[in-house]
Each structure stands twice: as structure tokens, then as C-alpha cells.
């Protein structure tokens, strides 16, 4: 199986025969991803490394998982015209809750606990955005601060411990494919199904596209936004579970050090979803995530200076989005 194996969503674009297939960002993103992979392979090979070595593939894929899960959730909210900056701290808290409940409870209770936490936070975000009409940017930034305070006040370091059985999620692999990819695939598929195939999904696109019009058409826009936030948090919860199984314990900075908040947004936009909402989708997002993961792996192979990495990442993100803008203009 090649990396594209983690992309059932791509098929999304096929059954729906649309004139604008070419302008569908997802396609472009996956093409871009393919290009990046080929280039990466060339560069690494020239450098004398082996890009398609098992270890490397595994690394790339497992690096996709955490960011992928978060980004899928993030695309749900961004599609709906909102935004979530609280994901990073939710991840941290998630890993802690997971590790602690699993330590003196069963794995299932741990999972349930994390998902419950996620629902709560998502609900809070949604209510603040729709109820108090606080701009999503500020609202979720606020929740982020609140979570952060809670974490720093209650945790002074890694806490809890996940049972070995749960670790399989983080470490096992089938051939080069880490099983955690299937978690991502499952969640992504669910999210894709939800956004593309259900009424809720249609309403999400509508709300993101034109909140006023959607409301006039009888869409319960507030409810939609709230649900979108809950979906997002649930995906983040999944990411937290994965990280917990990978780290073996809960870490107060699991989410923040990796800057999952901004990274996920970058991935989503990289995946061709419009920040304004109403356009794009999960399929593209996964492509964006893959691109970032491949870049990282290439940097690793060439052991690029970590500071220089950031420069390249920044350039790539801007350049990619600039390209979409051009495509959009031509096709429009």
C-alpha cells in the first residue's frame, strides 16, 4: 500500500460528476502531494538516502496521524465558517485524562472519558461562538487560555500511564503501515461521510458559505455550528488518544509544543479549504497533512537545520495557497 491508501475520501469526487472537477481543490492537493513525494524521493535518493525505506514510510505515515486527526476536525469547523484555536490545549488535556483514567480504569472508560471531555469543550466553543456571538477566533482563543490555566494549575508534568494493550495503537504496524493510520482513515472517512453525504454536512457547507442565506432557507445555523465544533473536538479527542497511546503517558504540552492549533489550520488551508468557509473538504485536508509530513521526513533525511525547516515550511504554505488562488482565479 502506498500513502494514498489513507485516502478513501479522494473517491469522494468521483460519484458526484461535476463540471468543475478540475477546480475541485482536493484533486489539486493530491497532485501536489504526489509531486512533493516524487521530488522528496529524488532529493533524498540523490543525497544517498532511501526514501521508500520501510522505516521512513512508517515515520511519514505515523507523523500524519496526530496532525491528520486534528486537521480533519479543524476542517469541519472551518467549512462551517468557524475556527478552533483551542485544539492544542485540548490535546494536552486529552492525553492526561486518557492516561489517568486508563491507569486505574479500563481502556474503554479512558476513551469514553476523553470523548466526553471533547464533547464538553466543543459544546462550550460552539455555544460561545453562536450564543455569545463572540468571533470564533477570540472565543476559541479564550477557551484555549482557560484550558491552559486548568492544565498548568493541576499538572506539573507527565501524568498517568496507558496499559501496554493500548500502546498497540501507537506502535503496531502491518508491514510499513502503522495501525494508527486506520484510526485516521476511520475518523476521516466518518468526517467525510458526515460532511458530504448527510444533511448535517450540507447544512455545514451552507452555513459556511452564506450564514444568512442558510438561515433564510430554514437551516438551523447555530445548531450546525455547535455540532461542527463538537465534531472538531471529537477528532481532537481521537488525536489525544493516539498521542496518549504513543507517549505512554499524558503530557501537559503534548499539543502545544507541536503547535497543533496553527499547524492544523495551515494543513486545512493547504488542503484547499477556504478559510472563509463553505468550500473545500476533508479529502483535501488529508492531502495537505501528507504534504507537511513528507516535507518533515525529507528534512529529517537531509538533517536540515531545524530553524531552516520553519523557513521552508512557511514558504511552502504561502506558495501553495498562492497557487490555489491562481487556479481559483482562472477557473472562476
Amino acid at each position, binding site marked *: 500500500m502506498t500513502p494514498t491508501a489513507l485516502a478513501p475520501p479522494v473517491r469522494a469526487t468521483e460519484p458526484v460528476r461535476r463540471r468543475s472537477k478540475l477546480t475541485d481543490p482536493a484533486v489539486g492537493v493530491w497532485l501536489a502531494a504526489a509531486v512533493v513525494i516524487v521530488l522528496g524521493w529524488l532529493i533524498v535518493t540523490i543525497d544517498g538516502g532511501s526514501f521508500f525505506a520501510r522505516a521512513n514510510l512508517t515515520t511519514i505515515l505515523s507523523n500524519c496521524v496526530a496532525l491528520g486527526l486534528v486537521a480533519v476536525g479543524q476542517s469541519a469547523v472551518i467549512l*462551517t*465558517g*468557524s*475556527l478552533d484555536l483551542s485544539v492544542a490545549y485540548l490535546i494536552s488535556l486529552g492525553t492526561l485524562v486518557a492516561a489517568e483514567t486508563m491507569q486505574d480504569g479500563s481502556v474503554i472508560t479512558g476513551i469514553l472519558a476523553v470523548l466526553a471531555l471533547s464533547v464538553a469543550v466543543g459544546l462550550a466553543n460552539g455555544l*460561545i*461562538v*453562536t450564543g*455569545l*456571538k*463572540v*468571533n*470564533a*477566533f*477570540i*472565543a476559541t*482563543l*479564550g*477557551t*484555549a*487560555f*482557560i484550558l*491552559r*490555566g*486548568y492544565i*498548568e*494549575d493541576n499538572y506539573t508534568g507527565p501524568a498517568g500511564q496507558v496499559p501496554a494493550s493500548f500502546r498497540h495503537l501507537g506502535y503496531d504496524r502491518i508491514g510499513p503501515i502503522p495501525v494508527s493510520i486506520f484510526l485516521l482513515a476511520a475518523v476521516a472517512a466518518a468526517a467525510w461521510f458526515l460532511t458530504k453525504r448527510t444533511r448535517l454536512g450540507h447544512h455545514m457547507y451552507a*452555513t459556511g458559505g*452564506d*450564514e*444568512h442565506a442558510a438561515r433564510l432557507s430554514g437551516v438551523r*445555523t*447555530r445548531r*450546525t*455550528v455547535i455540532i461542527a465544533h463538537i465534531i472538531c473536538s471529537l477528532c481532537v479527542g481521537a488525536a489525544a488518544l493516539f498521542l496518549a497511546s504513543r507517549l505512554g503517558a499524558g503530557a501537559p504540552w503534548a499539543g502545544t509544543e507541536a503547535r497543533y492549533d*496553527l499547524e492544523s*489550520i*495551515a494543513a486545512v*488551508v493547504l488542503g484547499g479549504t477556504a*478559510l*472563509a*468557509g463553505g468550500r473545500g473538504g476533508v479529502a483535501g485536508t488529508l492531502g495537505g497533512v501528507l504534504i507537511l509530513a513528507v516535507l518533515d521526513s525529507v528534512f529529517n533525511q537531509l538533517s536540515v*537545520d531545524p*530553524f*531552516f*525547516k*520553519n*523557513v*521552508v*515550511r*512557511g*514558504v511552502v*504554505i*504561502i506558495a501553495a*495557497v*498562492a497557487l490555489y*488562488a*491562481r487556479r*481559483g*482565479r482562472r477557473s472562476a
Partner: protein
Amino acid sequence: MTTTTAPTPAPYKRLTAALGTGIPVYALLVVLLVALAVTDPSFYELDRFLAFVKRAAPLVILAAGQYLVIVSGEFDLSVGAIVTAGVVVAAELYGSFADAHWLVISLALVLGGAIVGLANGLITTALRVPSFITTLGMMLILEGAVFYWTGGSPKGVLPEDFRALGRNSAFGWLPWAVLVCLAVGAFAVWLMRRDFGRTLIATGDSERTAALSGVRVHRVRVLAFVLSGVAAALAAILVGGFSGVSAQAGRGLEFEAITAVVLGGVVLGGGRGSVIAAMAGAFSLQALFTLLNLQGVSGALESTVQGVIVIAAVGLGAANWSRIRRRSHSSGGTPS
């Protein structure tokens, strides 16, 4: 098309016209200042208060710059990185030219800020990249580039004459930072009254209208970004002066600045809000931090309190105007 909006009574309108959407922030500021007085009566002794203003200065300046960008309908997430870069670069420059005149270095920083802003602006307008992404990328680039250049930490020290602006006082009692802050504030207010300011807001409100009225929307926006970059550079000079070399001088400042602006009732998405309110937002934020320090709130809990208050304040602001905002389909992207 017939009017879809309900007529509103005159006095109400005049009030809003006078205070803009900033009423809640002024209220918040007053409350916080009173709270400060209660917590620590000596807070209003001249030097203490000036020290407070001095401390707030960088954020206020950042807020002013950020306001220009936000009111034109964009974002600038790169200001924090600009501040960090500014401080580090200054130190690095002094590392190589130990006896450079402080004015030269400062101008170099301001120029640098302007260039970064220019890049942000051009990428956003000419290349049509959403400013959120442009400036996010710029943030990564700046942080990466600066540390790549300095190998992680600056090699020079900031001499006293450079630091005077951020640290010392004129006539022994009036901190230079306060003067700079006042100057920037005055300039910002003046600017917003000028043609540039008005066309800038109009652009943020309706880009097409502005364009069809002869506004060079791209140029106006780019200029906003440039000014924001310059403001960030000034903030860098003050921060560097105030607290010396630090590899993380500007960490999180971009969010603080945006929060401040939004606290000031400025609508993300553009076209709404006053620069004074935005700066008041910055003062409120700083007052909040100070209050939390003086109250001796457990270091860890501070951020929680901060989060709650920010949400509450903005929520209050939104609530006040929600009726109106729902009618004018705000481009802020927040479903209401």
C-alpha cells in the same frame, strides 16, 4: 431593494456614532483601573502609573498597527515574530558593530519591519493569499530565519543608549516609552481621520465599493500591513530596551494584540471600530495582567482568568450590537 433594516432612534445612533462599538472596552478599562486602585492604592502615584503605561506601551503600539490591518479586513499574525526578530537582530547587529549609533540600529529595525509588512501586503493582495496564511507563514519564516542566522541565540548585547528608549525616562520622570506610545497613538488617530484612514475603513467594509470609487484597495491594504510592520518594529525597540536581549521577546504578542483590538470592539473582517478603542483594549489587557499580578493569583491560573474575562468582555460587546450586526451580514464569519 427595500430597506431590510428597522429604523433606529436618533439618540441611540448618535451615541454609537460617538463611541463606535467600543463602549464595552471603556467600561472594562474603567472597572479594571478601579479594581487596581482598590487592590493597591499607591498604583496611582505618578511614577507607578507611568511605569504601568510604559509597560503597556509596546502592546498599545502593536494594537494600533494591528487595528489598521484588521479594520481593512485582514489579519497580521506576524507581529510577534517581528518583535522577536527585531530584538534578536538588534543584538546581532551590535554583536558585529558594537559601537553603532542607536538611532542607526533603530532605523534599521523600523525599515526591516516595513519590509516585512510590505511582503505581507504584497503576498496578500497581489497573490491573493488569505492574510491569515500569509502572516502565519511569515511568522514561521521570520522565527526560523532569525535563529538560523544567529545559530539560536544573539551574539551581541544591547547597549544602554539603545535601551534608553524602552527603559529610561525623559527629564528623569517621564518614560520615553510613554512618549513614544503617545506619539504613535496620536499619529494613529490623526491617520484614521485623514483620507487614508477613511478609505482604509471603507475598503474593509466593502472592497468592491471602494474599488469602484477609485480607491486603490491593494495599495491601501499594503500600506496598512507596512504600518503594522513598522509598529511591530517600534514595539521591538521598546521591548528590547525594556527587558534586554531575549530569544522569545515577542512570543504570543500577535494574539495579545489581536485580542486587544477585538476587545476594543473592532470587528474581525473589517470596516468597523475605532483605533482609540483598540488601544484602550490594549490598556485593558495590560491592566488585567497587572491586576492578576497584584492580586497574587496563582501563576498557573492567570491564563484561565484571562480567557474568561476576554470571552466575557467580547461577548458583552457582541451582545450589545448583535441586533445590528445580524442585519448587516458581517463578513466577520461568525454565524449569529
